[in-house]
């Protein structure tokens, strides 16, 4: 807890410090290089094994074929369409479960009665493997919307629990002050619970990216007619390992991008919420 600092004047770094900075930089490059090396070695070995018939390329596919398949699927086929479908489903799934989950958590905080009544149901729903609900979603919601059903089913309960836990923590500390000023529940919610929950909401959002993707792909496996999950299952059924592998790579890429976007949104919200005026 230091005194407020204005701009520190920074003197020229001492020789020792320059050396330290240089060695840090060197270490960083070393790490990056090693990472790339692992990837290259993996791909190289895979290609080599397939070429020299150590393994059956029909079963394992091979990197050079993947590039061709990617080009075929990407530019003549519908790879990007499928990616877009999956991405849209995931984003909508995340938004729905975040909003719904936060609302339900607020309800639970507002009404101890509701929270107590619904507690055992939450426990059961949390423990239940949501994939088992697949056929129900398919029958009730049809092939397109059952994907959303699955996505939300998998991420909603966790969202509620994480947000609710954050609320409970806050209720023990900051609300005491609000009470001393005679604040209403709505004021507590607006002035403390929601702004103070921002870091917790961001953490929940990050967890949700992974969970919702699981739900979306699972839903697509079970029922859909489009999306990367569909492409992976379809490729498996027609014994097209190239198609399966390309779809998986695309999926990996997509999830990294989604995670990156969430990270950016998260740090923006933290900066705005916690270091400026509300």
């Amino acid at each position, binding site marked *: *807890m*230091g*005194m*407020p*600092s204005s701009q520190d004047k920074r003197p020229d770094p001492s020789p020792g410090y320059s050396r330290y900075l240089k060695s840090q930089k060197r270490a960083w490059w070393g790490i990056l290089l090693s990472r790339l090396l692992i990837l290259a070695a993996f791909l190289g070995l895979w290609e080599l094994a397939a070429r020299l018939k150590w393994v059956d390329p029909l079963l394992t596919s091979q990197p050079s074929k993947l590039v061709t398949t990617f080009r075929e699927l990407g530019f003549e086929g519908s790879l990007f369409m499928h990616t877009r479908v999956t991405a849209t489903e995931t984003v909508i799934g995340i938004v729905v479960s975040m909003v719904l989950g936060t609302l339900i958590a607020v309800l639970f905080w507002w009404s101890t009665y509701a929270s107590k009544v619904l507690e055992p149901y939450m426990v059961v729903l949390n423990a239940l493997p949501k994939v088992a609900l697949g056929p129900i979603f398919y029958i009730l919601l049809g092939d397109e919307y059952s994907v959303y059903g699955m996505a939300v089913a998998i991420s909603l309960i966790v969202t509620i629990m994480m947000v609710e836990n954050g609320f409970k923590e806050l209720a023990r*500390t*900051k609300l*005491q*002050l*609000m*009470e*001393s*000023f*005679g*604040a209403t529940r709505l*004021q507590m919610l607006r*002035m*403390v619970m929601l*702004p*103070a929950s*921002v870091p917790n909401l961001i953490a929940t959002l990050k967890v949700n990216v992974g969970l919702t993707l699981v739900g979306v792909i699972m839903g697509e496996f079970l029922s859909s007619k489009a999306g990367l999950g569909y492409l992976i299952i379809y490729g498996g059924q027609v014994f097209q390992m190239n198609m399966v592998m390309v779809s998986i790579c695309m999926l990996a890429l997509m999830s990294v991008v989604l995670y990156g976007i969430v990270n950016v949104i998260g740090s923006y919200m933290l900066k705005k*919420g*916690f*270091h*400026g*005026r*509300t």
Partner: protein
Amino acid sequence: MSIIGVRDVSLSYFTPKQETEALRGVNMEIEPGEFISIVGPSGCGKSTLLSLISGMLKPTSGRVLIDGRETDGVSPKVGYMLQRDHLFEWRDVLSNLLVGAEIRHMDRERAARRARELLERYGLSGFAGHNPDQLSGGMRQRVALIRTLVTDPDILLLDEPFSALDYQSRLTLAEDVFRIIKDQGKTAVLVTHDISEAISMADRVLVMSKRPSSIIAAYPIRFEEGEGLSPWKKREAGKYNEYFNSIWKDLDGHAIVSR
């Protein structure tokens, strides 16, 4: 007429497992502008008493009067300063100062003006735009006090406001808080387990017994050195030790639990 009246108040807490009698037959009258300290062993219900005066709790029996009227919910005449400052880290200092004003739907412009004046007056001008985590512990508590003053209460309840600080900041802050409260002409009730803090701040010290608590002794604090001594001066004053020893003896019979 006394500004705070506590008449034969008892309070019990109920949980499914047990019933705890926290207060039994507490009586006190506090005059406007008085500074009262309440000392007692840990867990004796000192904070409970403050919650009763603020209106956050209702007594199981007895009456709590503010300005002669029975409390009904949190009174706007009462301001509460808590052990922890509870500054919101998502708001800057000025915006934190307006929390109480906002809750009570006071005019924002006027509250902001008052907040700035108070910051200026008590040596925190220039910090309005800072974030709470840029302030030291003592500064944070001063901001917390000003936050309470912005709503302009007549009565200030101080619930061990210095106990989270190191000894040095404690002495300095006690000095500052005393000066601010006297300067603003507020009635104050300070709850503490620190006997010397109680003597040095107050016009009158009340001693509470352990649970179920009641008030077992009252000491009007008067020094021959004069009226209106600062807490620091009081600690050096002649009768200080005498008061300290008497209160210590009162508490001794009731086993102080160290915290």
